[in-house]
């Protein structure tokens, strides 16, 4: 076998063995307390690949050194035939590591977060069950089931909770709904009474009854209203009207209420009313259908639904959000809201407990927004949930199935302009996400995204050191692999066994050799880190990439020179 094919063969063999070792370690070190078992295989594969890629330079060194160190022939020929396969192999491995690295990081982050959310919800569900808070327990269990339905802990808890819910249902006695006291309003009552009177005079006893009843509710001492309500009711009966008219009147009234809310600019309130009507067996009513759809459309423009936020926030989260809204006068092309000189000069800060990306939007939890100018704060608002879409942040969150549950913003100051349900800002969700992700988990961004994130983080007032350091680490990998390959070929060529056939039994030393290489590998990695740190210190920002690349190129060049120099020492074992 020539040394070219031998290098490929040995490298593939060593890489496979190393991957198997990393995978074995990942399996052995797997803990169900840390990672949900349903992710076990994916986690172990990702962990093994991460370890494999991090040790790639060392493996490349070992492969080249072993391949050449066990080959017969003249040093010059060996090195010459080793160059091409070593370069091809190094290029393939470096490209694989650069492409797969961010995906592995991203996958691991997602699994880690989902497992943490699972554990937290499982504990909360158990606590809720023990405390008798079955509703909370059910909600938390639903989250666990969304992550790992077949997990034995979830199945067991489901049984316990179902039993507890059944028991509670059997024991429960329906309580009459308490009557809500009506606020007394004699003026409004009189207006309603006059309208009722007008309707009665026209012979519309249905409307007369409804208005008179409303007037009587608003002012119980209003005897005229009660009398009119009674007479109009008798008239309805006398005409053979269905007693269900009262129900229809209530339905009519609710429709009117919803319609009024929609027209007065409260689509969330309108959606709540029409959703209730639709749920109360009026879904076939054409008005209800029409206004429900209309209010839903309007709601989605001014607010968002909590299930969207929950879905996003139950996946991968970025914690501790803090960034500045970029100044549009400095940074063009962000799109979104209109450019305002007054706003451009102001300080605009966004803070949130955490954020998550989903379907082109960025969702925040425990959101806060500050806008301050020369005269002090112009706007200060907080909202339990917020959603950033192109050019605006929606602050009102509605529960889709229970529209009466609305999470509204609280404005301490402002709003300086526009509606209170949203803030118009020149923000692009994708850029904002990239900027915040670059601080917490830069390794999960693709190379292209990471490159763009350097500028984004600066524009958003986020420390760009983590993303630059990550880019430096990524750019170091190809150099490390090529340098290790060259060094491996050099060492293998120089320290090879001469004369006779190579005893196959010596390959058994491979694990020992790999272990012996560990201290050297660790020290080399630290020196590589030192080059990165020093480059950042000398030339902060993206320029440090050039400096580090320059230093590493010099190191690689020196190693190649050494490797080339090895050609002339054929004959001596070590010189």
């Amino acid at each position, binding site marked *: 076998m020539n040394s070219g094919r031998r290098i490929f063969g040995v490298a593939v063999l060593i890489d496979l063995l190393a991957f198997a070792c990393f995978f074995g370690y990942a399996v052995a070190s797997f803990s169900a307390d840390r990672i949900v078992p349903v992710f076990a295989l994916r986690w172990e594969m990702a962990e093994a690949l991460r370890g494999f890629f991090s040790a790639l330079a060392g493996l490349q060194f070992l492969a080249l050194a072993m391949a050449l160190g066990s080959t017969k022939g003249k040093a010059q020929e060996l090195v010459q035939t080793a160059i091409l396969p070593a370069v091809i192999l190094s290029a393939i491995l470096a490209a694989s590591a650069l492409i797969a690295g961010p995906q592995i990081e991203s996958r691991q982050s997602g699994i880690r977060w989902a497992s943490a959310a699972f554990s937290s919800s499982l504990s909360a569900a158990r606590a809720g069950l023990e405390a008798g808070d079955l509703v909370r327990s059910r909600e938390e269990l639903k989250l666990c089931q969304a992550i790992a339905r077949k997990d034995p802990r979830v199945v067991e808890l489901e049984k316990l909770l179902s039993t507890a819910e059944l028991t509670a249902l059997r024991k429960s006695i329906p309580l009459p709904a308490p009557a809500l006291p009506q606020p007394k309003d004699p003026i409004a009552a009189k207006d309603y009474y006059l309208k009722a009177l007008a309707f009665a005079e026209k012979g519309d006893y249905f409307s007369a009854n409804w208005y008179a009843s409303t007037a009587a509710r608003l002012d119980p001492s209003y005897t005229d209203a009660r009398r009119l309500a009674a007479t109009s009711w008798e008239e309805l009966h006398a005409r053979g009207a269905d007693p269900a008219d009262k129900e229809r009147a209530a339905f009519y009234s609710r429709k009117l209420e919803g319609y009024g809310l929609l027209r007065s600019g409260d689509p969330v309130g309108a959606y709540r009313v029409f959703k209730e009507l639709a749920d109360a067996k009026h879904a076939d009513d054409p008005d209800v259908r029409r206004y429900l759809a209309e209010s839903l459309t309007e709601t989605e423009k001014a607010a968002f639904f909590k299930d969207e936020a929950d879905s996003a926030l139950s996946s991968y989260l970025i914690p501790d959000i803090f960034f500045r809204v970029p100044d549009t006068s400095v940074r063009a092309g962000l799109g979104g809201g209109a450019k305002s000189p007054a706003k451009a000069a102001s300080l605009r800060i966004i803070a949130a407990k955490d954020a998550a990306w989903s379907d082109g939007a960025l969702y925040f939890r425990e959101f806060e927004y500050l806008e*301050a100018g020369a005269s002090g704060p112009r706007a*200060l608002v907080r909202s339990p949930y917020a959603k950033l879409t192109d050019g605006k942040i929606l602050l009102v969150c509605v529960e889709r199935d229970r529209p009466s549950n609305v999470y509204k913003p609280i404005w301490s100051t402002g709003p300086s302009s526009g509606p209170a349900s949203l803030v118009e800002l020149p923000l692009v969700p994708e850029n904002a996400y990239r900027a915040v992700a670059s601080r917490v988990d830069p390794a999960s961004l693709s190379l292209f995204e990471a490159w763009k994130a350097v500028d984004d983080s600066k524009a958003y007032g986020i420390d760009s050191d983590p993303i630059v350091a990550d880019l430096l680490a990524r750019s170091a990998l190809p150099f490390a692999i090529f340098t290790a390959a060259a060094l491996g070929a050099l060492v293998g060529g120089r*320290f090879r066994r001469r004369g006779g056939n190579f005893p196959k039994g010596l390959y058994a030393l491979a694990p020992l050799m790999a272990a012996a290489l560990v201290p050297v590998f660790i020290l080399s990695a630290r020196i590589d880190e030192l080059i990165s740190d020093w480059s950042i210190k000398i030339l902060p920002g993206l320029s440090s990439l050039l400096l580090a690349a320059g230093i590493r190129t010099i190191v690689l060049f020196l190693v190649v020179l050494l490797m080339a120099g090895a050609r002339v020492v054929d004959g001596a074992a070590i010189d």
Partner: protein
Amino acid sequence: MKAWLGVLGRACLEFAIILVLVSFAAGASVSLAAPSGGLGAIYRSAAEGALDLAPLAAVLTVFLAFFSFEQRVKSRAAGWLGLLVLGALLLSFGIAVRRVALIREAVEGPSRGVAQTAPPFPTGVAVEQGRVALWIGSFEGADALDAVAVDFGSDYPRLAYSPRTGIDPSTGDMDIQGRTYRATLPAARPLNLIPEASLFSGSWIWDRLAAMDDEPLLLSFIAAGGFLLLAIGFRFLCRITGWPLANALLAAAGLAGLVALDAALSGGAVLGIIESLAKRAGLLLPKTILLACVEGIMGLVLGLAELAASPRGRRRFDE
């Protein structure tokens, strides 16, 4: 004799190259903590590093010379002697140069008295301090303008803002909405390339020798001599298997093992045991000498075992 001298000469050249590389690596790591970066800081730190790390460069050279002597010098006793001479020469050089006042002043002068100052607090960038994010728009005299703080560890709402707040110049403390925050950055620290010393109660040989500048010269030579004998004792690694490549890698690991063994032996607990044993034997010697004796004996035993062991395997792979 020619080969013997040739190996010695070549090893001295390797020592110079290794010392330069090691010094620059140490210089770069130390200069990370310097207030201002640049090549000047590296040169100064590298010059200091060259004085401190000469013993490390010497032992690296000795390990490389294992193979050169093994291949070039037929007599193993001559090889052993060559290593001893080489090590003694290089270590003595390192120890002696440290003690030349002119060199020490020239090397340490420029950096002496330079206080490590914390870098200035950046403006326009959120700075994380634990779970607190601190933002300062700009500085105006001793005041911070547009100061924003968010403590993510506290209850919601968390955002605090002050359009202008005074900063205590001595502590960096500032008040934002009734709570004190510290607008300072931690001083930069050097990157420790070999932090494993913390695993042992002892210290690295080069640190110990550097700390002996004010001790008698003979004591430094004894300490270095003991370590050198122990290092030469590891010579067996250069022909422990029939594959030179495996031997080279095992020797690299052996070097790490040697340094770690020395650090472990120099630790208080082990040294205490050695001292108590010596007292029982009636030897009332300083700890440094006791340690050197133990290391020297260990090295001699390993060396004798190697000499007495299998005949040279050089021919097996040098045919």
